């Protein structure tokens, strides 16, 4: 068997135009040997779930700096489950107040990262969660 790189969908749901973080993460994950599908801005939860299915990713990475995470993340989680993508792990980054993190994790979000997190920490967290 040859190598099987971890496949990650990096998406920006909603109308949030802050895409620096998403691009930084996409590059860091590529440099860590992962295959990153970058879908660009203004993705609806439906688009994200469908792309996750077609691309058969291990990870969906959402970048949200607009404050809309409490509305968007549950929708993405529901749609992924609805498509049978129960094994896909969801990571969230951006501006997320501390008190919002426990409920998001209760929904199944694997981990949440705020501004200033080193990309090494993020890479390690994804690797540990997927363990291929």
């Amino acid at each position, binding site marked *: *068997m*040859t*190598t*099987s*790189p971890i*496949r990650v969908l990096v998406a920006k749901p909603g109308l949030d135009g802050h895409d620096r973080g998403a691009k930084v993460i*996409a*590059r860091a*994950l*590529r*440099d*860590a*040997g*992962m*295959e*990153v*599908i*970058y*879908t*660009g801005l*203004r*993705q609806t939860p*439906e*688009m994200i779930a*469908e*792309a996750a*299915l*077609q*691309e*058969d990713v291990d990870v969906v990475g959402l970048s949200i700096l607009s404050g809309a995470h409490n509305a968007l993340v549950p929708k993405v989680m529901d749609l992924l489950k609805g*498509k*049978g*993508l129960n094994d896909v792990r969801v990571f969230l980054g951006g501006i997320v107040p501390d008190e919002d993190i426990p409920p998001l994790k209760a929904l199944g979000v694997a981990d949440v990262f705020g501004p200033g997190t080193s990309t090494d920490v993020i890479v390690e967290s994804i690797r540990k969660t997927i363990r291929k």
Partner: protein
Amino acid sequence: MTLHDSILSGDRRALARLITKIENDQPESRAALAALYPRGGRAQVIGVTGAPGTGKSTLVSEMAKAYRRAAKTVAIIAVDPTSPFTGGAILGDRIRMRDLSGDDGVFIRSMATRGSLGGLARATDEVVAVVDAAGFDVIMIETVGAGQSEVDIARLAHTTLVVEAPGLGDDVQAIKAGILEIADVLVLNKADLPGAEAATRALRGMLMLAHTQWDVPICETVAAEGKGVAEVIAAIDRHRNYLLQNDGMIQRERDRVRRQLENLARDLLYSRFIAAKRDEVDAAIEAVASRQRDPYSVVDELLK
């Protein structure tokens, strides 16, 4: 239900999972491929190649919309390069295909080259066979934008589009030798930009020097606005008819299969050989590296 039965019944998740297994060369993929292969052969396979940033993804997206309007289902395989240093890749072609999401008649898969050269991923042939068997009417393959002559795509696709754009340095220089050998249709995209006319003229000049049986058409497009896309599709249809009328289709298929069988046989023979003679090969490497033996007689001996 087996994976291949699920795929034949239209399960897109099963299709996506089999593609991953093929990419990762997992043993189960072989049986599924064998079962699916006979069900293919109906799809129209279109290759789209050209230098980076010429608008391949944008054009593919617009063409997909046009095929959808004609009630044809569309699969898109978009290939981007794997970093030779890290083994990772950023696959960004979907950014330009946003309009296609939410349509069940479109399936998009991004693939990394994983070390293969020539603009395609190693497993592209197999993925095309599977998507074909899954029943898509049109399969479009976007190659890596390497800007060199991408021979592999011309062998795989029925019709190959080469996408050019004005302002890629000197117009004539931008059109590399070899591209005419693979282009069935030349597209000058970004016809809205200055220099488009000069670029088209340069392309026409190049074509006049070529003596091909098929008269390669040049289509000007503004993919970002959907302009000229209908003409591209008409040109592809004309090329398809040309192939069908001249036995070109079956000849292309024979050539493709011959190459595929060669590759498969070579891989299989080599892996069997290595498995059976690992120790002898190791010893031979030592002997040749230290110049006690030469590689030619050593290989002769190993294969006796």
